[in-house]
């Protein structure tokens, strides 16, 4: 079809070169990372699937097996996890209502109002950012002393919400500040050049430009804290409630602490109940994540 290279070429291939040419090595070379990295990825997949499988199996067996009379109240169903679901939703709401505005306000102050940044501001910002690395159980200890005993907030949804908001705050500040910092300075310079005040620049330029990543960061922080059990256990969460909390003053119940309370019991019925609560918790977190995704997309669409 096509004439051989040598014939068509204007410059005949020198025979010495052709003779000297090493033969092409056929076949593929071994790549040690290819196998190892695929194995690791497969392990991650298996871990995720295994986790889902463990939970599903526990619930499945409980529903399939006969209920041999446990002396306890219970049974995996809506009556048992309903109060905890309501509690977790309340707590997420409280976290969002407190951590979001305060965190965003803090970030705006640090990034926009404290400009140019003095050393003290930078030090403060770093100090707050690293609080995100402090274990949540530590917040529970502080919350117990300050909220439950100091403010007499009791072991209530209110106390739990405050503790979780304090836990989420450093993360919200850090992610919001990062989003604000990513807004190009040209935007600010142009706006200031037109005679805008700081607030006008923030309101009309910075916030619209940074809204989507701020929402994403806040949503991630709230989702993470909504799954926290340790600080609520320290505050003194309720292990069994016959009613759903209807307001901030009601006793502290939540899905994560309920998963804990049931999971540590050796009986299979409670393992199933814990697995059911865990699935409900994962579903709520997934819902929050999806809501965050929609919010983010919407913010991106509405604001340029």
């Amino acid at each position, binding site marked *: 079809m*096509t004439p*051989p*290279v040598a014939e*068509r*070429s*204007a*410059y*005949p*291939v*020198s025979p010495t*070169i*052709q003779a000297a*040419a*090493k033969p*092409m*090595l*056929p*076949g*593929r*070379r071994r790549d040690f990372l290819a196998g190892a990295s695929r194995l690791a990825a497969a392990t991650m997949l298996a871990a995720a699937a295994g986790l889902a499988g463990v939970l599903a199996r526990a619930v499945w067996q409980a529903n399939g097996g006969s209920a041999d009379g446990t002396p306890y109240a219970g049974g995996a169903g809506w009556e048992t996890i309903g109060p905890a679901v309501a509690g977790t939703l309340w707590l997420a709401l409280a976290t969002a209502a407190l951590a979001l505005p305060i965190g965003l306000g803090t970030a705006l102050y640090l990034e926009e109002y404290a400009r140019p940044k003095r050393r003290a501001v930078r030090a403060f910002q770093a100090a707050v950012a690293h609080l995100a690395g402090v274990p949540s159980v530590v917040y529970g200890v502080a919350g117990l002393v300050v909220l439950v005993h100091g403010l007499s907030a009791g072991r209530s949804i209110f106390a739990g919400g405050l503790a979780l908001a304090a836990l989420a705050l450093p993360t919200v500040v850090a992610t919001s500040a990062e989003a604000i910092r990513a807004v190009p300075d040209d935007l600010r310079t142009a706006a200031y050049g037109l005679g805008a005040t700081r607030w006008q620049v923030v309101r009309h330029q910075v916030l619209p430009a940074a809204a989507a990543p701020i929402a994403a960061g806040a949503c991630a922080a709230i989702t993470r804290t909504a799954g926290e059990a340790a600080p609520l256990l320290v505050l003194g969460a309720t292990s069994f409630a016959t009613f759903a909390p209807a307001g901030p003053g009601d006793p502290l119940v939540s899905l994560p602490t309920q998963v804990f309370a049931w999971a540590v019991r050796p009986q299979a019925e409670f393992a199933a109940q814990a697995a059911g609560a865990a699935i409900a918790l994962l579903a709520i977190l997934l819902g929050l994540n999806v809501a965050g995704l929609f919010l983010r997309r919407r913010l991106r669409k509405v604001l340029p």
Partner: protein
Amino acid sequence: MLSADRLSVRFGSKTALADVSLDVPAQKIVSVIGRSACGKTTLLRAFNRTNEMIAGARTTGTARFHGTDLYGRTVDPVEVRRRIGMIFQRATPFPKSVFDNIAFGPRAGGFAGDLHELAEEVLTSAGLWADVAGDLDAPALALSAGQQQQLCIARTLAVRPDVLLMDEPTASLDPAATARIESLVHSLKATYTVVIATHDLSQAARLSDMTAFLDAGELVEYSPTATLFTNPRTRQAEEYVTGRTS
């Protein structure tokens, strides 16, 4: 020795190279000219199978090296890259010492000889030996931009390729460094086959034996350099080399 036959490359739905057929003769310098984004880089990358590292790339047609289809089922792309080396527009020394930069390729290829000897040889070939001989452990990033490009060429030579693909090797260099690289390329012709993509017409005229003119991914004209620059067969090539481009 190196040839393309109806070679096309698409990135997603975008065609970067369309039905290009050309032969690169041994121990000659072939330059590839054309406007930005005309497919010069893609053509070079097609010859050492580095396009496939870009997501969505699809290559059709054949590219042959000593008659072997580079895209053949049994061909190892890693071996292809050892035989057909490539130098990029921007010097990309690894953040390691000069010596480690040279040694990376030979070590990867299982080189059993004396690496220092090899380093001296290739650095000499690349005209860099005098500059770096004193301290081969110096960080490569401490070299000047021109020296970095020379190092990249030396590094490629250390793999002992048959062909050097050079993608605008002097585009980001100053005139003095450009001159050094050009004379280096010229001297390499004795042992290597070189394909050089360039947007500098005078460089193409100075260096190459054959010139290929690409436009929008298509090979418009492929002629001996003297012919293409003085008496091009096609009107597009004439317009381009005389600067009367639309």
